[in-house]
């Protein structure tokens, strides 16, 4: 005999102002199977929960219906309360008489009738609920971090320092990301490499971090706590175990005269075919770029092999496929800057002296292609007048990039400031639309650039830039004064928009992640769950989620690490039992369910007879992946799949009650 308890919440005036809660309570008390019906001002409060707990014991309730707000608010609250009173939490359901009733209706009579109806429906359903128990999953307490920029490095260190093994995969030959290319960072003007390289070395030396550089993630299978990842370690053509990092090969490589553009120097310098991207690279082992190496192209050369004192060159080296078992994955794949080719009005990339922010960092950098001298890429002449253009791509609906890239206002101020430090008689002009400087010490930093360093800030977008007599003519507008302005600049630096790194779509497919229209990976909730994704066990850190600066990336990386650690901190993971279940007797093995499952949670299971012959292959739900969406249950032609907690009996009881 069912003994259902009905608990009607006033929710202050949210429900009670529209719904006659006392009448509802009284009507439900009369409903067959209801053993106890009560109302209270705030059911979710401690006293409210106590009412439920005591009622369960006193009235020997077999089920609980809390008529209140949306389950997404307090289902967990009330289920925990029931559990602590000894009632299986899945015998507790909520009837939403707030979002579905009092908040959307005004007529008191109608709303009250509807509330009564809604609660009756849930009572009928709960009568048919079964006890369910959480699913426990073992966790492999190892993490994978994809991306070795500052975010990936921070996440890897945090997880490894807590005592767990981390595999850090980076597709470039060295970790460090874009931060390694910066000269100084705002607002402290720390030398970027000086603060970054200690962390890079820590990664290298950490006993629990397995560093795989020049490597990419090939495939990912499995589920939270039990991922199987295949990593392709691309062939460097150099034996990492033998190489001493002396660098002689890079100095003697004849292809250094072949004009191969250096990726690290953003095209402002060339590099040899066998190269170390920058002096502080981790690992300090060169890589042979087989697409430009003379030996690989023509079969002749092998100079590096001859000069290498450690005999570390290995032209026969092949890509290696490495399999790793991990329990959690942190995605920290970072950003890239858009190409200025979409801005025909700024030269479309044709003008050598119109560069982007990262290229300017290389010019500023003491270890850069000009040794920190500010000279023009075109003719090497000194730069005396520089124009910085903000919002090149960002906040430009016409170019398809409506968002703000967040960091540019700050790094432009930094660039203007550093330029004035280097070139005392230089002139810096900044063309901006708005100044976004919301961080700690940020606004003061921008004011410093203007008030102390004398950078001239012009509020207005630049219409076009053209070359004339060896100078760049920047045609702008100062909207604040209403004056048309023009600058004859030696150098123009465009603050181009940030976009996600190449390959985000492929990685998303492999990890079953979603991304927005611009390619930034989607967080589970923009406000309250910024580092989780909708794929259990996969977390985000850094600019791959949205444009952000270094402090935010580091903070987010530590947050992602914390999430990983909370996953590893429990002996096993508990997952919601409201998942699908296949009736293997009736399943015909058509696998329509497999086709519609968005989580790849349907597996194939062989049913064998006693002699080991396969009788049939049926569908089987992987409890670690299933998120209980019910698509399979709806698709299955002969109703062989049920969704626990939402089986046909429950749902139909609810519907039939409504129609009576």
């Amino acid at each position, binding site marked *: 005999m069912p003994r259902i308890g009905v608990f009607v919440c006033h929710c202050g005036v949210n429900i009670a102002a529209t719904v006659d809660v006392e009448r509802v309570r009284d009507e439900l008390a009369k409903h067959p199977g209801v053993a106890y019906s009560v109302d209270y001002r705030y059911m979710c409060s401690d006293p409210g929960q106590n009412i439920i707990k005591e009622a369960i014991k006193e009235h020997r309730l077999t089920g609980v219906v809390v008529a209140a707000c949306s389950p997404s608010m307090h289902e967990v609250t009330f289920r925990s309360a029931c559990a602590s009173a000894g009632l299986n939490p899945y015998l507790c359901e909520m009837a939403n008489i707030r979002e579905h009733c009092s908040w959307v209706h005004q007529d008191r009579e109608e709303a009250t009738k509807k509330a009564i109806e809604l609660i009756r429906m849930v009572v009928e359903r709960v009568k048919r609920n079964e006890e369910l128990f959480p699913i426990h999953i073992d966790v492999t307490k190892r993490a994978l971090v994809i991306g070795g920029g500052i975010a990936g490095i921070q996440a890897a260190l945090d997880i490894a320092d807590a005592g767990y093994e981390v595999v850090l995969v980076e597709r470039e030959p060295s970790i460090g990301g874009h931060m390694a290319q910066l000269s100084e960072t705002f607002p402290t003007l720390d030398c970027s490499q000086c603060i970054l390289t200690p962390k890079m070395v820590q990664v290298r030396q950490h006993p629990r971090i397995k560093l795989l550089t020049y490597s990419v993630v090939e495939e990912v299978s499995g589920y939270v706590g039990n991922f199987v990842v295949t990593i392709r370690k691309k062939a460097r053509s150099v034996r990492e175990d033998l190489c001493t990092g002396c660098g002689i090969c890079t100095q003697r490589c004849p292809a250094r005269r072949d004009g191969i553009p250096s990726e690290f120097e953003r095209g402002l310098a060339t590099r040899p075919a066998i190269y170390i991207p920058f002096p502080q690279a981790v690992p300090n082992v060169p890589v042979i770029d087989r697409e430009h190496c003379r030996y690989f192209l023509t079969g002749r050369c092998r100079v590096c092999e001859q000069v290498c004192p450690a005999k570390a060159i290995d032209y026969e080296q092949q890509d290696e496929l490495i399999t790793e078992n991990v329990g959690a994955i942190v995605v920290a794949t970072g950003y890239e800057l858009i190409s200025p080719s979409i801005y*025909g009005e700024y030269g*479309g990339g*044709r003008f050598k002296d119109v560069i982007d922010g990262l290229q300017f960092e290389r010019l500023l950098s003491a270890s850069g292609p000009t040794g920190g001298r500010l000279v023009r890429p075109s003719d090497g002449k000194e730069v005396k007048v520089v124009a910085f253009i903000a919002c090149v791509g960002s906040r430009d609906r016409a170019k398809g990039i409506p968002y703000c890239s967040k960091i540019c206002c700050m790094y432009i101020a930094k660039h203007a400031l550093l330029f004035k430090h280097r070139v005392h008689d230089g002139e810096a002009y900044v063309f901006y639309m708005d100044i976004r400087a919301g961080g700690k010490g940020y606004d003061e930093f921008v004011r410093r650039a203007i008030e102390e360093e004398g950078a001239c800030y012009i509020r207005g977008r630049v219409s076009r830039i*053209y*070359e*004339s007599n060896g100078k760049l*003519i920047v045609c702008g507008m100062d909207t604040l004064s209403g004056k048309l302005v023009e600058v004859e600049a030696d150098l123009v630096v465009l603050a181009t928009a940030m976009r996600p790194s190449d390959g985000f779509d492929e990685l998303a497919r492999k990890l079953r992640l979603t991304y927005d229209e611009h390619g930034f990976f989607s967080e589970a909730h923009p406000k309250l769950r910024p580092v989780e994704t909708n794929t259990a066990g996969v977390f985000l850190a850094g600019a791959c989620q949205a444009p952000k600066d270094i402090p935010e990336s580091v903070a987010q990386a530590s947050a992602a690490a914390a999430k990983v650690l909370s996953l590893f901190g429990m002996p096993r993971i508990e997952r919601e039992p409201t998942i699908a279940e296949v009736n293997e007797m009736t399943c015909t093995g058509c696998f329509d369910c497999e086709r519609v499952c968005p989580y790849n949670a349907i597996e194939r299971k062989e049913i064998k007879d006693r002699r080991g012959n396969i009788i049939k292959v049926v569908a089987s739900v992987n409890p670690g992946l299933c998120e209980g969406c019910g698509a399979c249950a709806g698709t299955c032609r002969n109703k062989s799949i049920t969704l626990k907690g939402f089986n046909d009996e429950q749902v139909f009881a609810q519907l039939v009650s409504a129609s009576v």
Partner: protein
Amino acid sequence: MEAKAQSTADAHPEDAERKLEFAYYPGCSLSGTAVEYGISTKALCNHLGIKLEEIPDWICCGATPAHAIRTLFPLALGARNLALAAKLDKPLLTVCAACFNRLKWTAYELKHNREAREKISQLPGLLDGQTVERLYELQILHLLTVLRELYGIERLSERVRYPLKGLRVACYYGCLLVRPPKVMQFDDPENPRVMDELISAVGAEVVDWAFKTECCGASLALSRSDLVAERVHRILSDAKSRGANIICVACPLCHVNLDVYQIDANAKFGYEHDMPIAYFTQLIGIALGIPAQELGLEKHMVDPMKVLKNALAQKQT
């Protein structure tokens, strides 16, 4: 000068087989201030076996003034012309940049704007029996595109008899050929190259310069020629500073402003620009061997013959 050149349609019968036939929309200025543009267009097309059938009873496209002060009138003008062209059942070809712009705009409006279609349908007799769909399905082409895409640059360069050596040409596109890009869909609006490629193909040196699409002042010539003088001065100065000795245009109004109003620019700034302005049809025509008189080159205010004589002295071997 050479005897009248034969139509290459005779010398190259395969040209005629290509059947490049168009409904020709000359526009008002081609019988007036841009008469040499009309003459040279006809001569060039005739030479290349491109058949132009002038649309009977075409009317003014409205150019800038119509859309500048009226709202429905410019659409009606455009619709009328498209309807008349549609009757000929051939793609429409024009050489005037403003006409090209207005006709394409009309087609775009009719295609994308339901209200525009409704309004036009309310004017009985305007479309002369054509449906509105027929209007915006009509292909509207500029001769520059026809020469590069349909006739072919390779073929064109093969027909060259006098490669224009010694000519340093600044190709000036002006505004209406390329803007707004959503409507015109004609080359890169910031750095177009179609004219440069054609002029290059006939042997001239094409100069890279910064005022390719900078406005000349357009229809302000009628009322505020002082403002036009200002713009013309800037354009000519930049061309000259890049070493250009001739400017090539594809728009009658640009030609008038740069050629006829050059003396205004000279006077205002105290500077003798002495920069000849030629239509691309004239330059290509010269290169192909069409005599200068058949291209109207004597009609310009700033004499182009000085610069062209050098080129003409060198024949392709």
